[in-house]
């Protein structure tokens, strides 16, 4: 059941993201920046809140008038008030979509449970922050919200005296109690920020600031909304009356009508039940956790690349423990490892150009060891080459794809080209693919072309895998893809599972262009016929790992 919901939600997000990609060009796509947007909106709320607090009167008698004065100053304080409200509302919307998206992508499993779990109190504190802000306007809505909130809290019976009694009549509410509400509205959001920091602390380089372009467009949008439709108040609160109809902020107050309908006890049951349900999502849909990466010290020279590339800070460089001459060694924290395999792709020892049977690398994945990767790659390439015919006769290409991109088997059957055979090879994340495999596929596997495909641009399931692949190919990040690999024979396609037809079409176009390319390359290589590069790859690639460095 959960899987079905997830699948539909995921497909929904894939389609929405595709729509936004058309206008926002990948990195600026707000659907992929929901977490950082929530942080940014928090800062807008905090900044505008500090400003309006300067003019806010903290007494019961003066609070409403001071807010009204601010509303009247439409060009500054009024904008700040509206920004404070709309950014808060947007933060709820963004946080909820963020939660749904992470759920649909299953980003709560394994080591990601921490971010999921710490996200739950964020929801509570976010609502508490917003609701406590509504009290301070001290209009009819504030009166309704304050009384409802206190009645809800009173049900717990932990305050001795009913807190709601402070709102019985105009004489029972005091300035002292009102200032307590002000303090709550200051300290709860501060606590919220503290938990937000907790939420991302296990991530490496968490995105807590959206790209500049998004900051500008979101800010401008909210300012425009504040000018066109400024936030206003109801009539001043009067405890001798009850407001029968209220203009409601549904982002924050959605629970209150339910509270009115079912009462405080059942409402607590709903709140706690929903919290528990969301908390146990990682347990309900638990999959067997893939074993963590492991280090083979005899092949680890402490180069730090795996630690630098790990998106989850699961690898730490520690002083050498085996007496070898290197300073450090990689140590994997199994509790933080999500088995993405990016460390394997980062290890310079992870190369298929070797003859030793065991193919031990510096860091490896038990679920898909490097040796298996090479063996399967060789096997599928041989089959494809055989099907396509000899080099020059037919086209054979290999597609390396990740577990969260397009379905590779479906892709294989979707590419219908005569005289072209497609081999597919899946890895957990494209970042797991050592760049030497691309070289290997062309030079040893006799592939006419190589395609690397994974999640949509800027939407890598494992955060950085896609970036590292691009950087390794472009020789910006170690281990680099060697210069001698003709980049014309290589293509990266970043796409979601819903983009199967588009990817199949791109693969077909790429494959169709390859025969001519092959001729062109042969022509280009002729003058270098005597150079070692033009000969058999075996001639220039002694089977040592150092050759790949």
């Amino acid at each position: 059941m959960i899987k079905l919901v997830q699948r539909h939600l995921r497909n929904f997000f894939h389609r929405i993201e595709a729509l936004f990609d058309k206008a926002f060009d990948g990195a600026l796509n707000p659907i992929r920046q929901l977490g950082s947007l929530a942080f940014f909106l928090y800062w807008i709320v905090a900044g505008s809140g500090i400003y309006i607090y300067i003019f806010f009167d903290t007494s019961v008698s003066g609070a409403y008038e001071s807010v009204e004065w601010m509303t009247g100053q439409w060009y500054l304080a009024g904008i700040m008030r509206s920004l404070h409200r709309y950014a808060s509302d947007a933060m709820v919307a963004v946080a909820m979509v963020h939660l749904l998206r992470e759920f649909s992508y299953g980003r709560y499993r394994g080591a990601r449970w921490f971010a999921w779990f710490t996200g739950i109190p964020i929801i509570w504190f976010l609502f508490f922050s917003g609701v406590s802000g509504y009290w301070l306007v001290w209009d009819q809505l504030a009166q309704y919200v304050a009384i409802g909130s206190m009645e809800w809290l009173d049900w717990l019976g932990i305050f001795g005296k009913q807190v709601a009694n402070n709102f019985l009549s105009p004489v029972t509410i005091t300035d002292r109690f009102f200032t307590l509400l002000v303090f709550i509205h200051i300290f709860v959001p501060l606590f919220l920020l503290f938990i937000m920091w907790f939420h991302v602390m296990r991530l490496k380089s968490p995105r807590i600031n959206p790209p500049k372009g998004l900051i500008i467009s979101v800010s401008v949008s909210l300012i425009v909304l504040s000018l066109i439709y400024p936030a206003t108040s109801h009539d001043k609160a009067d405890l001798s009356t009850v407001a029968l109809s209220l203009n409601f902020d549904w982002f924050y107050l959605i629970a209150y009508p339910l509270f009115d309908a079912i009462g405080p006890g059942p409402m607590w049951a709903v709140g706690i039940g929903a919290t528990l349900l969301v908390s146990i999502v990682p347990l309900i849909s638990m999959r067997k956790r893939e074993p963590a990466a492991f280090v083979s010290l005899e092949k680890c020279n402490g180069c730090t690349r795996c630690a630098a590339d790990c998106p989850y800070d699961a690898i730490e460089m520690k002083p050498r423990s085996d007496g070898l001459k290197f300073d450090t060694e990689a140590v994997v924290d199994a509790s933080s490892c999500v088995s993405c395999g990016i460390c394997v792709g980062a290890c310079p020892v992870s190369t298929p150009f070797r003859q030793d049977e065991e193919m031990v690398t510096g860091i490896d994945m038990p679920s898909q060891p490097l040796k298996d990767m090479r063996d399967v790659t060789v096997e599928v390439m041989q089959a494809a080459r055989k099907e396509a015919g000899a080099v020059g006769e037919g086209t054979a290409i290999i597609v390396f794809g990740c577990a969260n991109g397009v379905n590779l088997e479906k892709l294989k059957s979707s590419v219908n080209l005569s005289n072209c055979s497609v081999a597919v090879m899946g890895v957990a994340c494209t970042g797991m693919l050592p760049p030497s495999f691309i070289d290997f596929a062309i030079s040893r596997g006799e592939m006419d072309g190589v395609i690397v495909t994974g999640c949509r641009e800027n939407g890598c399931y494992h955060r950085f895998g896609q970036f590292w692949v691009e950087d390794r190919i472009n020789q910006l990040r170690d281990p680099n893809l060697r210069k001698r690999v003709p980049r014309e024979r290589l293509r990266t396609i970043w796409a979601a599972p819903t983009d199967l037809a588009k990817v199949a079409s791109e693969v077909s176009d790429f494959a169709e262009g390859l025969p001519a390319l092959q001729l062109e390359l042969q022509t280009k290589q002729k003058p270098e016929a005597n150079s070692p590069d033009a000969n058999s790859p075996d001639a220039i690639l002694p089977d040592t790992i150092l050759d790949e460095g």
Partner: protein
Amino acid sequence: MEIAGINVFYIVPIMVFGPMVFFVLFKAFGIGSLFSLSDEQKELQRKHRQLKSALDAETAKSARYKKPKLSAAKIIGQGFLYIPFLLAIGYFSSYPSYEFAPENTAQIKLSLTLWGERKIPCRTRTAEELKELPSNMRKAKSCSRERHPVTVTFDLDGKTVFDESASPAGLRDDGPSSFYRTFMVPAGNHELVVNIYNSDDAIPTEKFSQVIALTSGQAIALTHTAGEGIVIH
């Protein structure tokens, strides 16, 4: 409350956010570097900046920091995508209205904090008993802490709409019993009758009865004070 003529509630946020602002100014914007440094420190800073800018330039080439390609058409497209977002934020921040209660309705709140009778009535200590007690504990009366639960009934226009008992607060059952309930009633005249039973007796300890005229949207509260009994606010 004011300190040096400034409301304390303006000072608190300054104390909380002030250090943050200073931190940002000093660290992120480098205000701290404006203060005079030794030549050696300046040289170190220069080298550091050089290295950092070289590193930043290298990092900026990464696919991770690839600059988005924007065109006029894309910016217009973004505008169109922001419209539903802004409409949703603007609309749902105030609408649709919530009808808390129908028109011509009034509210009656029953909020009573009542002390039940002591389970064992107080008695006067004898002179011998007082003599045995330490001098600081020689109270003339000996009273049990535990109190009876209190029962309250509320009749509205002759119909009992509330009949509940509440245990005394506190681990030793020595606090007051509290009642809180809200009733929405049609506007107009209403007869309110409240009976309070603060012991096991079937006869109410206190009785309150009053006819009251309520207008649409009016809210009244029935509370209890020791000297006056039930009072309508």
